[in-house]
């Protein structure tokens, strides 16, 4: 039961995001558009490049979708609306999402095409940049909650959301989450203007549909993680807990989706330099500030 509800919420949000995305790109708000486009993808041919690495090529979209779903499975919608409330839930998210990289490397290497391969290796560089900015803010969150259990983390924000308690951590995490979901302006591995689709370039038909679904689900998962870690999860007045979770998740996901429209793509060299020379020191500062706050403020 719980499983069904959570998965419906997940894919429902992904569908809503697809509607919004379609709205921003075509200017028409149509609830049926994602379904139609999915059907159209089913109707197209799904070309397999004369791929010397068929296994990678086939595995990549599925792996991406699986890790996005697994990530969402450990995030609570409401105190009892969670598929698996692991003892190390906050760490499990990281572990699941680390395989986004693996999926992209597979997708890049598999088809033996230049654009895809460059895209795949670019994303490895991107991971090296954003990865620490995902884990370090989560550490600071865990310090306050004294736990890695996701429901406990939400519980610790009953009085004050973490976005207020540790705004620096929120900013870093949000940016890093966008980089993880390779949304614009961090869409280096799939950059249309630079790599003509990059890792996506060789996927067509139903495989492309799965890949698109996986990317949207990934955005929802990350938005949900942001909600749980920084926006107080299900806490909120009046509405039932699950509604608050969903509203916050959708708001974060939409802001991730829309931010890219108004920004040019970042340079890879800049991304790496800024993350390492600015982001990581700031994340350390965040940990120290939170450390002091936790000790000083009861």
């Amino acid at each position, binding site marked *: 039961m719980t499983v069904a509800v959570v998965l419906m919420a997940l894919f429902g949000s992904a569908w809503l995001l697809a509607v919004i995305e379609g709205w921003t790109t075509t200017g028409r708000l149509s609830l049926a558009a994602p379904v139609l486009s999915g059907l159209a993808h089913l109707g197209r041919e799904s*070309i397999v*490049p004369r791929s010397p690495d068929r296994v990678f090529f086939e595995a990549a979209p599925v792996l991406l*979708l699986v890790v996005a779903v697994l990530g969402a499975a450990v995030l609570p919608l409401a105190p009892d609306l969670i598929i*698996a409330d692991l003892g190390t839930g906050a760490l499990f998210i990281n572990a699941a999402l680390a395989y986004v990289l693996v999926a992209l490397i597979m997708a890049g290497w598999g088809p033996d095409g230049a654009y895809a391969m460059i895209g795949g290796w670019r994303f490895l560089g991107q991971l090296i940049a954003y990865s620490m900015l995902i884990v370090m803010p989560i550490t600071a969150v865990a310090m*306050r909650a004294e736990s890695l259990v996701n429901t406990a983390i939400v519980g610790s924000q009953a009085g004050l959301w973490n976005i207020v308690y540790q705004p620096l951590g929120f900013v870093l995490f949000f940016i890093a989450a966008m980089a993880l979901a390779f949304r614009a302006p961090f869409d280096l591995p799939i950059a249309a203007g630079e790599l003509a*689709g990059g890792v996506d370039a060789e996927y067509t*038909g*139903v495989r492309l549909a799965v890949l698109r679904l996986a990317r949207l689900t990934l955005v929802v998962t990350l938005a949900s993680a942001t909600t749980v870690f920084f926006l107080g999860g299900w806490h909120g007045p009046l509405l039932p807990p699950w509604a608050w979770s969903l509203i916050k998740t959708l708001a974060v996901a939409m802001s991730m989706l829309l931010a890219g429209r108004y920004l040019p793509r970042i340079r890879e060299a800049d991304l790496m330099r800024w993350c390492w020379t600015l982001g990581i020191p700031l994340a350390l500062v965040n940990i120290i500030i939170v450390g002091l706050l936790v000790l000083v403020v009861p």
Partner: protein
Amino acid sequence: MSATQQYVLLLGIALGTVGVVLSLYGVARSMGRTRREPGKDVPASAGILSRDPVWGRYHARYYGYALLFLAFDMEMAFMYPWAVVYKEVGLVALLDMGVFLAILFLGLLYGWSQGALRRQ
């Protein structure tokens, strides 16, 4: 729910997702197979048919970052258990981790000064 049951549930969800994807593939397959035609299976490259394999030795210019990352990443293994008990232990934990992080930060600074933090 015990931890083991939770893992089994997660495994089941993963397998279920794979199953859904496979059934989608099945539906797509029912529309007909991909027709083999000349040029179609060559990786697309902007209107030029380039058949050369691209799997060569690839120059990853971020290897300086990668080396530092490999070492720096390990810090996380220690930070999570630390974070969980931090409040309980108090100031000692802060000092302890402060020293640890300072040591690591030194390594980062060294790498920075030596030019590891740039495209090679």
